[in-house]
């Protein structure tokens, strides 16, 4: 068990080709100590957050910041982009939650059973993050979106 928290800060170009590299990094950080099933949860949650951040910024030269803090028993990951902010219509769940996200407030706890409609092709990323993480905070503004994920071992 890691006694001292390890910190990794990444600034990556907003390109989807970097996604797998971020996954490898998270995996490497947790691999010695964490159960493989829980590592898979972290890898998926972080990948979804980074994918959203990349897709929020179609402009060339845009960047995504990823900050990871690994303790022995928990990992905290912040993913920040400088896109136009989350589209409330893209966020599954009641409208009130979406409004809270766009205004920068901490969204209320995930409502029970608010997944994307069964037939929808998009819109499951945030629901996945909610299900996998012990804590999820999404802060949005006109200047970008910051997602904070906390997962415990």
């Amino acid at each position: 068990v890691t006694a001292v928290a390890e910190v990794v800060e990444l600034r990556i170009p907003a390109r989807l080709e970097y996604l797998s590299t971020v996954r490898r990094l998270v995996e490497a950080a947790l691999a010695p100590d964490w159960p493989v099933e829980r590592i898979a949860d972290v890898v998926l949650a972080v990948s979804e957050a980074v994918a959203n951040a990349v897709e929020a910024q179609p402009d060339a030269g845009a960047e995504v910041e990823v900050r990871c803090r690994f303790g022995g028993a928990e990992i905290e990951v912040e993913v920040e982009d400088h896109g136009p902010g989350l589209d409330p219509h893209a966020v599954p769940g009641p409208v009130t939650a979406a409004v809270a996200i766009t205004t920068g407030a901490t969204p209320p706890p995930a409502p029970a059973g608010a997944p994307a409609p069964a037939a929808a092709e998009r819109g499951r990323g945030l629901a996945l993050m909610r299900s996998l993480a012990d804590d999820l905070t999404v802060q949005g503004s006109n200047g970008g979106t910051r997602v904070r994920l906390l997962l415990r071992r």
Partner: protein
Amino acid sequence: MELGLEVTERGSWAVLAVAGEVDVATVPRLREQLHSLVAQGRHHIVVDLEGVDFLDSTGLGVLVGALKRVRTNGGELALVCTQSRIRKVFEVTGLTKVFSLYDSVDEAVAVDHA
């Protein structure tokens, strides 16, 4: 990141074996392959996910889209998935109620979907 896509025939079924990491960067190839099968009139498709190391929400979305396409044509799309970490992605999104998940290709093609 390479995505392995291999199509084989099993009676009336087309079996698409996927290998590697399915994420938003690689998913366009999976989407094209599935659309192309449907366009060729293959409306009974097994997608074998046993070789998949990672599957994200966009991968789920493409599978849902393909399921809708084949069902519109009176067909079916069955999934082979025994890895618990991949199965979990379907479970936490409620998609185990939408898809039929099987333990093997043999089991998937043996089911009468009529």
